[in-house]
């Protein structure tokens, strides 16, 4: 299966709160899992990425948690800020074809 399922579709969080976005996959050939942030009118920008041999990666306020056995990974945004309001996409790269499969996106709105 080449799908990556992402939830929720939209998320509203108060300033200072924690935003959590989840993704699930089935293809065990995926070996790289990036998260992209996209602002209106802009291309997606790499936010943070993880490989399946690591269970967690943190960069500033952004953390990826990875559960290899469950084939799930999630993005946590700590101390969410209004400037974080954007659409977030998870993705997975197939180790054989180098093809990226994207989730359907989560529109995050952080209230001031």
């Amino acid at each position: 299966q080449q799908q990556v399922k992402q939830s929720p579709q939209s998320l509203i969080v108060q300033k200072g709160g924690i935003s959590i976005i989840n993704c699930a996959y089935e293809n065990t050939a995926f070996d790289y899992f990036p998260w992209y942030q996209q602002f209106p009118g802009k291309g997606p920008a790499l936010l943070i990425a993880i490989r399946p041999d690591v269970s967690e990666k943190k960069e500033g306020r952004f953390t990826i948690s990875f559960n290899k056995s469950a084939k799930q990974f999630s993005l946590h945004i700590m101390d969410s800020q209004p400037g974080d309001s954007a659409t977030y996409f998870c993705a997975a790269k197939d180790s054989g074809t180098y093809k990226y499969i994207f989730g359907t996106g989560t529109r995050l709105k952080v209230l001031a």
Partner: protein
Amino acid sequence: EAGVAQSPRYKIIEKRQSVAFWCNPISGHATLYWYQQILGQGPKLLIQFQNNGVVDDSQLPKDRFSAERLKGVDSTLKIQPAKLEDSAVYLCASSSTTDTQYFGPGTRLTVL
């Protein structure tokens, strides 16, 4: 380093007309991707090049879409003839290794 460049940024055409998009990847990046992003959805891969060879074009509507990457650097994506459902943002991305891919700003196409 300079990012992925795309032009034009916006294009409005009538249905059945033709249109071409141009992409200049980051210098030295061997892999180039063209994606179609319909409003509210994640990017969908249209074609992937490794140098000037096609790796994956399984989702490219070949009856109307074509793409080439001459000399393994710049790439053009063409639609001829365009349909209403081709209205989308066309994103170009490149990567130097098998992992991190960087996106350009995209070309927003409106077909009337």
